[in-house]
């Protein structure tokens, strides 16, 4: 199950999309989401589909890999479909047991499904083509203007990247502690919910202690290497816009304008 989640994973390959500045990709994702929620027209969705397909093609990430990411949220999608299908009022089409399916319900369910699927595909595409460090760099610089409002942007970005580094270490550690407790006869699989929750204590306590110890040592190691926040700090890999990034921004702007144009022209009609 944990392995199926592709959101947040990075797919290593070399493509135009991979090489884009992370800020462009963040902005692109934002624009993509906006267009996704602009309206309910089929034409609009056709446009979104073409855009998404083109980006996926350019990213060289196998479609199979992106679709796999949907597995983790399949239940969420199903829920939304069922809710919309049965709970939307309007012209009845047919009945199942006590529930009525309406024409509006079918439309809404279909749109919600497409929206959710596209939303997840679009956002996982960003993480699939951007390394965690790049992503945090992009966030730090892209949200840099928030510093004016005393938002500790650099610190938040640093925290994110440290979390990303330690997640695999802590997963491995959990596995080790679990095995060590199993060697002492611990049982995590049988019993009711209460008993199972209690059985987690011998794992969670050592895990927390270890996480705190690591945090403590890491903080000291950072201090020892002259870390003192963002003040006077230079960058090994500063973000600089290249030619491709400028082109990408133009493409994004064009895409947004076209989509808004379609939406206004259709004036809320579905087809």
């Amino acid at each position, binding site marked *: 199950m944990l392995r199926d989640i592709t959101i947040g994973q990075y797919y290593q390959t070399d493509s135009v999309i991979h090489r884009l500045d992370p800020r462009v990709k963040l902005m692109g994702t934002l624009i993509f989401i906006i267009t996704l929620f602009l309206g309910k027209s089929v034409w609009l969705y056709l446009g979104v589909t073409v855009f998404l397909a083109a980006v996926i093609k350019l990213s060289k990430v196998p479609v199979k890999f992106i679709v796999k990411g949907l597995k983790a949220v399949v239940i969420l999608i199903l829920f939304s479909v069922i809710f919309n299908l049965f709970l939307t009022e309007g012209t009845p089409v047919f009945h199942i047991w006590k529930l009525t399916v309406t024409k509006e319900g079918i439309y809404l369910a279909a749109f919600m499904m497409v929206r959710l699927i596209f939303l997840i595909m679009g956002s996982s595409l960003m993480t699939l083509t951007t*390394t965690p460090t790049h992503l945090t760099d992009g966030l730090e610089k892209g949200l840099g203007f928030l510093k004016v409002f005393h938002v500790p942007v650099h610190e938040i970005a640093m925290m994110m990247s440290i979390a*990303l580094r330690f997640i695999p270490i802590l997963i491995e550690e959990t596995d080790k502690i679990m095995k060590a407790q199993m060697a002492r006869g611990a049982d995590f699989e049988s019993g009711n919910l209460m008993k199972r929750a209690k059985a987690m204590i011998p794992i969670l306590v050592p895990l927390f202690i270890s996480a705190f110890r690591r945090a403590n040592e890491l903080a000291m*190691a950072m*201090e*020892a*290497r002259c870390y003192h926040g963002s003040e006077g700090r*230079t960058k*090994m890999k500063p973000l600089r816009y290249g030619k491709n990034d400028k082109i990408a921004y133009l493409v994004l702007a064009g895409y947004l304008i076209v989509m808004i144009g379609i939406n206004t022209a259709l004036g809320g009609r579905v087809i």
Partner: protein
Amino acid sequence: MGIVKAKDLTFEYIRRDEEGNVEGITTAVDHVNMDIQPGEFIAILGHNGSGKSTFAKHINALLFPTEGTILVDGLDTSDEDNVMDVRQRAGMVFQNPDNQIICTLVEEEVGFGPENIGVPTEEIWERVAASLKAVGMYQYRKASPNKLSGGQKQRVAIAGIVAMKPKCIILDEPTAMLDPHGRADVMRVLHELNRKEGVTVILITHYMEEVIDADRVFVMDEGKVVMEGTPRQIFSRVEELKQLRLDVPQVTELAYELSRSGVPIRSGILTNQELIDELMKLK
């Protein structure tokens, strides 16, 4: 002038019980005097709790003396304005390889220190490449630290310090968690840095094999320096070392045991060849 100069360095901390009441005062470092010259390879030996790690943290301005002074490259660490300079000039490598690596890529990890001290971008790249080559980890520059062995991680940590161009590197039991291969690699890198770049190395350890090639050895116990001298001088005092429950290399121990059994062998044997030469005289 000495690179590290400790004068009557004392560090005390207050022990408290669970309610926060004062239980007593522990003197972790007790009037330590040390004068380390640039380019020396120094080893500090002692048990856990002997005060050696606490002392080491003073050199990097992570702790400050309760009494006495410590000068690093002439800078008094107690002066707040000196802290960043002290940390840049005296870099520190810790015991646990995992808990001192901050970044998700090897090259970024090595660049972390230079970034903090405001080195220009171009120069960071030069320094990163040079330091990774110096520790033999250049081909791993694009790798994730999680994929490396313990010894490789420690070499990356050393490169991270070297990239800050320190005059002195302090290593707090850098090999304690490594296998024999990792240990040998780390030791080789340290001696190379010391010899080729002239970096002062202060190695804190309890492995005797790592001490033999040092220029000078300090033995600490209960916060005090109890022995000081060349490795040969130190290992001539097997009885004292044993009382401190420290090891000696097997060849030194064997020579010592033989001399106790009445074989006339000089003290302070450090290598197999020395033992053979001594025994040859008796033949």
